[in-house]
Every structure is written in C-alpha cells, then in structure tokens.
C-alpha cells in the first residue's frame, strides 16, 4: 500500500517535471532546463526512454535470476516469477523500442536505421519472442520450466556481445557508439545540468519501484491462477 502511494506520488512529480518544466537558453530559475542545441524539446525523451530500457534490462536479469533458482530448487513458483519478469521485460522493451523509434524519426530522420543500439534492442525482442514461443510449444510443466530457463540463460550470456561489444566496433548515432566524441561504451556520460540529473534519477528510481510493484502484483495473480488450475 505504501509502495503504491509513494510510487504514485513520485511518478506524478517526475511526469510533471519532465514534461512541464520549461527549457530556456539561459536558465534563471531552478526549474528551468538548459537548452541543448540540436535537441531542444526533444531532450525530454531521456526522462522516459532510458528508464524504460533500464526497467526492461532489470526485468530480464530478474527473469534469468529466477530461471537459475528454478534449475537449482525445482520450485514451480520460481518458474512463475521468471516468466512474469520476462513478460514485463518484453512489454517495456516494446515501449523503449517505440519511444526510441518515434524520437529517431524526428531527430535522425527515419524510424529505424540499424544503429548498434537499435540492433541490440531488436535482438532482445527476438530473444523474448523465441522464449515465449518455446514456452507455448511445451505442454509438460516441468519440461517447459527447465527448457525456458536454460534458453533464457544461454540468451543472456550472448546479450553482452550486443550491449558492450557491437557498439564499439560499429559506428552509430546513439550516444555511446563508436565515433561518439564522448567515448564509446555502455555507460554514457550524459551532459545534464544538475536539475535534469535530479529528474532523471528520480525517474529511474520511480521506474524501478514501478517494476517491483507490477512484478509482485502479477506474480500474485499468476500464483492464484496456478493453484486454481492445480485444484482442477
């Protein structure tokens, strides 16, 4: 309950600040964001797009964590948690892709241009599409849980090749790619003013809490369904 209320307040504040605060060329007040040449109003995307991607990575890590737990303990509850986390990750992965593509249309000129980051998020979508088709192909519960856990672990070990290595050897438009004057790498040093930084990190914390809330809610629902099913 407290989680839900504090989450509501925090995300409301983040949304109001991120969308409502004016952007001016020479900030006078604490609430004014500085103008970034070439980005202008489009800079606001960072408050939503990056936390969405962050949430989906977090969800995939959670899914893999419960997958490993399942292989160790063989507890069906771990499999439920794993698939619920993968589902949330998939949802937010789609959101990150769509927000990024719309932004790319207005800033880079086309919805999609196979930038390394775009390629890696595309592969994430493919992996989890494959994960869910594997789950739906197997009828036996334990077998489904084992095979999908193993698949998610194998997929997870190949993801670093996209996130850490590909952007370094391929040139791209996204921050952190080869050719970026601020250096290539997965961790991007954003040139943000202190007030933007506060909103950005508040948004990150808000999305993390959002994940915890949604995850707990859906795990509870999935468990109820499981026990209902088990009763007959």
């Amino acid at each position, binding site marked *: 309950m407290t989680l839900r209320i504090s989450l509501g307040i925090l995300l409301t504040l983040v949304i109001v600040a991120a969308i409502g605060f004016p952007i001016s060329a020479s900030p006078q007040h604490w609430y004014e964001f500085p103008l970034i040449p070439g980005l202008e109003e489009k800079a606001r995307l960072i408050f939503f797009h990056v936390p969405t991607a962050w949430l989906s990575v977090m969800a995939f890590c959670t899914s893999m964590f419960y997958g490993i737990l399942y292989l160790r303990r063989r507890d069906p509850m771990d499999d439920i948690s794993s698939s619920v986390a993968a589902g949330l990750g998939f949802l937010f992965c789609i959101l990150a892709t769509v927000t990024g593509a719309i932004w790319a249309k207005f800033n880079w000129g086309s919805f999609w241009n196979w930038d390394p980051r775009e390629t890696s998020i595309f*592969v994430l979508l493919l992996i989890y599409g494959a994960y869910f088709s594997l789950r739906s192909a197997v009828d036996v519960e334990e077998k489904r849980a084992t095979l999908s856990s193993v698949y998610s672990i194998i997929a997870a070990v190949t993801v670093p090749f996209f996130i850490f290595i590909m952007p370094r050897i391929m040139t791209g438009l996204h921050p952190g790619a080869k050719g970026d004057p601020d250096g290539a790498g997965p961790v991007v040093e954003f040139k943000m003013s202190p007030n933007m930084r506060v909103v950005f990190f508040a948004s990150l914390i808000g999305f993390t809490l959002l994940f915890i809330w949604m995850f707990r809610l859906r795990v509870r629902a999935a468990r109820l369904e499981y026990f209902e099913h088990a009763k007959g």
Partner: protein
Amino acid sequence: MTAANTPLLRWLRATGAVFMKDWRSELRTRYAISALVMFVITTISIILFALGGEGASPEVLSGMLWVVIFFAAMSGLARTFVMEEERGTAMMLQLTTAPSAVFAGKLLFNLVLGAGLTVLTVVLYLIFISGFTVKTYSIFLGAITLGSIGLAAASTIIAAIIARANTKGTLYPVLSFPILLPLLMTVISATRLAADGMPFSEALGEFQILISYIVVVVTTSVLLFEYIWKD
C-alpha cells in the same frame, strides 16, 4: 589404478564412442548429409537465378554466403539430438553415458558436419558466384573456421532444447537466430573485410569477438546441458 582407467580417459573414450555411434548411423542413412548437400545446392541456385546474370556488390554477396550457411545449418544440425528422441534411444544413452560425454560427442559430430557444410558452401560459392572474390585469404580462412565452429557450438545446445520440446524443426531457426546473431554479424563483417582486401590486422577485433563468443557459448552449454538432458 592403471593409466587406461583414469576418469579423464574413460570420459574421452565415452565421448569418442558417442561420436562414432552418430557417425556410423549417419553414414548408414546419410539423412543429415544429403539434406545439407541438397539444401546448399538449392539455395545457391536460387541465388544464381535471382541474380540472373546481374552482378551484385561483394558486400551483398559476402552477407549472402552466411545466409546460405545459416539456413543450411538449421536444416541439418538438429538431427543429432532429434534422432535420439525419434528412435527412443535417448533413455539408453542417459543411463549408460555421462551427460558431459554425450554433449561433447554430439558437439564433435556437429563440428565435423558444420565444417563439411561450410567448406562445401564456400567452394560452390567461389566457383559459381562470379562477383564474389576473396582478396585477403588469411582473414577469409579465419572467418570461415571460427564461424563454423561457433555455428556448430551454438546450434548443438539449441538442438538439445528442440529435441526435448518435441517441436522438431519449426522452432529451431527461431530459437537459434537471436543466439547466433552476434556471431553472424561479426563473421559477415570479417568476410567483407576479406572481400575488400583489407590487411589481416584490420580483422583482429572481429576474431577476438568470435573466439570469446565460442568460449562463452561452449562453457554455458556444458554447464546447462545436464539440466536439459536429464528427465
């Protein structure tokens, strides 16, 4: 304890036995080999018809080479595990042989099959696709060697999953593609460098990625195979 009975030697013998068993039964039926050969010939002729005498740039053609190899591998490399489930011999193998030896034997079999497939495709491709010429052979050889090893490594563990899922071939490319994509992208970029005649040092980054990919995939496969294999 005599030298012949150390655990390592016993494991090596079991691995060799699994490999030889698969090899012999393959030579008797020639199921996977004929499927692979026909697939490669069909695909290359489709490319020839599609080009229709028009030349394509070496960049496009070096990507196309790996499209042929990828789909040919998808048509043949799942066979080694699917066969065990179809004939009902998986249970016997589980009882008599250590899981790691089974995996190593199957991996070895797929490595041989994958190498044969790659060599065949590359030879036919070099003969028939006239627009594709390799200028730096050292890069090209490295790319096809590491590429076929990585392809066999990743497709063996996915084949084990597929055989268990009872879906036969339909899911195989779907599950394999995201896992193989880092490998394919790197190997295509190395092949392009070879077609462009770049010096060997240009492709060192690609080779590092390929080698680390193979190491990572084989290690995780060995660790996870037991969970898939045992009921």
